[in-house]
């Protein structure tokens, strides 16, 4: 599963609630990923630009291990989304209702790539700044895209948000 959203929306917090291991962070060099996908064989001039990637994992049963990848969503990291979503069961875009714009790049990418996704509004201190219908309109997501409120610090709540995405993925898996 991919956990996406702007800086400070609660991605690392959410991954930590579900993961069996302490959340690990790695640096993904974005220019390298771009180069690899663009078929360029030389080293790009700026190889040190990186974006943080969190991950955690949880055993689902004795054969399946689910990985959670958390990353900030930014337009210019579009190529990285492609790497992350290949093989993903679905994506949860976390938004803060006071800063909805930050969720837009991720929503836009998942919509265009056909990745099943849902949007989770992290209810910082229980406050929702807009109605759900307004949020749906502002993010321009369709009626069948799951839109839930949750608390990134609460394990059950995070799992429920993931389940909403997975049920949607299942409906789309044919």
């Amino acid at each position, binding site marked *: 599963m991919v956990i996406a959203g702007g800086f400070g929306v609660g991605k690392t917090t959410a991954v930590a609630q579900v993961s069996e291991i302490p959340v690990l962070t*790695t640096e993904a060099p974005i220019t390298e990923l771009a180069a*690899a996908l663009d078929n360029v064989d030389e080293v790009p001039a700026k190889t040190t630009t990186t974006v943080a990637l969190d991950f955690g994992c949880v055993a*689902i049963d004795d054969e399946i291990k689910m*990985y959670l*990848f958390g990353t900030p969503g930014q337009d210019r990291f579009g190529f990285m989304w492609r790497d992350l979503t*290949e093989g993903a069961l679905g994506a949860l875009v976390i938004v803060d209702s006071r800063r909805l714009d930050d969720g837009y790049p991720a929503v836009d990418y998942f919509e265009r790539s056909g990745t099943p996704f849902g949007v989770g509004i992290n209810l910082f201190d229980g406050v929702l700044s807009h109605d759900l219908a307004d949020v749906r309109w502002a993010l321009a997501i369709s009626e069948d895209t799951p839109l839930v409120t949750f608390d990134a610090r609460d394990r*059950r709540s995070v799992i429920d948000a993931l389940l909403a995405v997975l049920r949607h993925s299942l409906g789309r*898996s044919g």
Partner: protein
Amino acid sequence: MSTDQPPGREETVQPPVSGVRPYVLTGGRVRPLHAAPLNIAAQIRSTPQGVAEIGRLTYEHRDIVELCDHWISVAEVASHLRLHLGVVRILVADLAALGLLYVHDGNLAGGRQGAVIERVIRGLTAIR
């Protein structure tokens, strides 16, 4: 860093990734010698040949073969070794091409996706 973790969880202290230009480790290459870069969730494990040849490997290759004495994802290897994910993807693909690592691409065959999602839903509901 500490503000990034919810209370009651062990803190993950992550030293900064080496400032050395990362592609020095791959000889300047941004793609593996023989294969496409691996999916970051692909599972890898050292082969007996990898273990046998460990003394002849470069430091980074040796670290990877040593760490992979059990199935582990490419992303976890990057994190444990504090290497850039992109560099690890290339090094791992090279090692696999040399027969020193097994690779199991975590991706699901199309037809099985629905059944797997159902299992994940059941499993997550059970640990909720």
